């Protein structure tokens, strides 16, 4: 599964994207897996209410299932316009 990071999530984790092997059933399960990896992941995912997630480029909730999903992206609330 491709996992992408944007804005300060990308900066804290230190990379824009990576391939993650996971058995996580939901986005929140994936977040738990990532938090355990290293301090920089724990820091980036400390408060998920400050984050947004997209599954295959569609905004989703953190309890959404990951069945069939190829691309997960984490980022802060958007500031377009």
């Amino acid at each position, binding site marked *: 599964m491709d996992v992408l990071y944007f804005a300060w999530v990308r900066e804290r984790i230190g990379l824009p994207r990576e391939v993650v092997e996971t058995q996580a059933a939901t986005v929140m399960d994936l977040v738990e897996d990532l938090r355990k990896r290293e301090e920089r992941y724990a820091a980036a995912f400390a408060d998920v209410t400050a984050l947004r997630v997209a599954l295959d480029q569609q905004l989703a909730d953190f309890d959404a299932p990951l069945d069939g999903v190829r691309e997960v992206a984490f980022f802060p609330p958007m500031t*377009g*316009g």
Partner: protein
Amino acid sequence: MRVVVQDAPFDFGQEADAFATGHTVSGAIVTFTGVVRDVAGGLKAMEIEHYPGMTEAALTEIAGQAVTRWSLEDALVIHRYGTLAPGEMIMMVATAARHRKDAFEAAEYLMDYLKSRAPFWKREVTADGAEWVAARAVDEDALNRW
């Protein structure tokens, strides 16, 4: 309907004029343009990051919803990414409708959704360093009226 995501500057006057010309069924054309502003003074640049692929899809969906909901004859969204200087134009939207109320509402809808639902992130660069622009609660709240 046209959606453009690019790092290059766009020619606002030319885009606005081209959009407004040739819609003889539409009596009302509204444009909104966002400009990098330097309110506090000392802004060196505005850096805009985006999510290639999702950005175009999100803008196309938002514009399509506006066209349907307000029966627009046409809609245009242009949004830049990359490094912009103060005074440069970040983005524009334009709407064409028969009546002014529809053209105004559709443009406001486009802006409200684009602000909070299109995957762009802004960072302000000053002499003191760079800081990500925080999303404003007022922008999220603006979505509730639609």
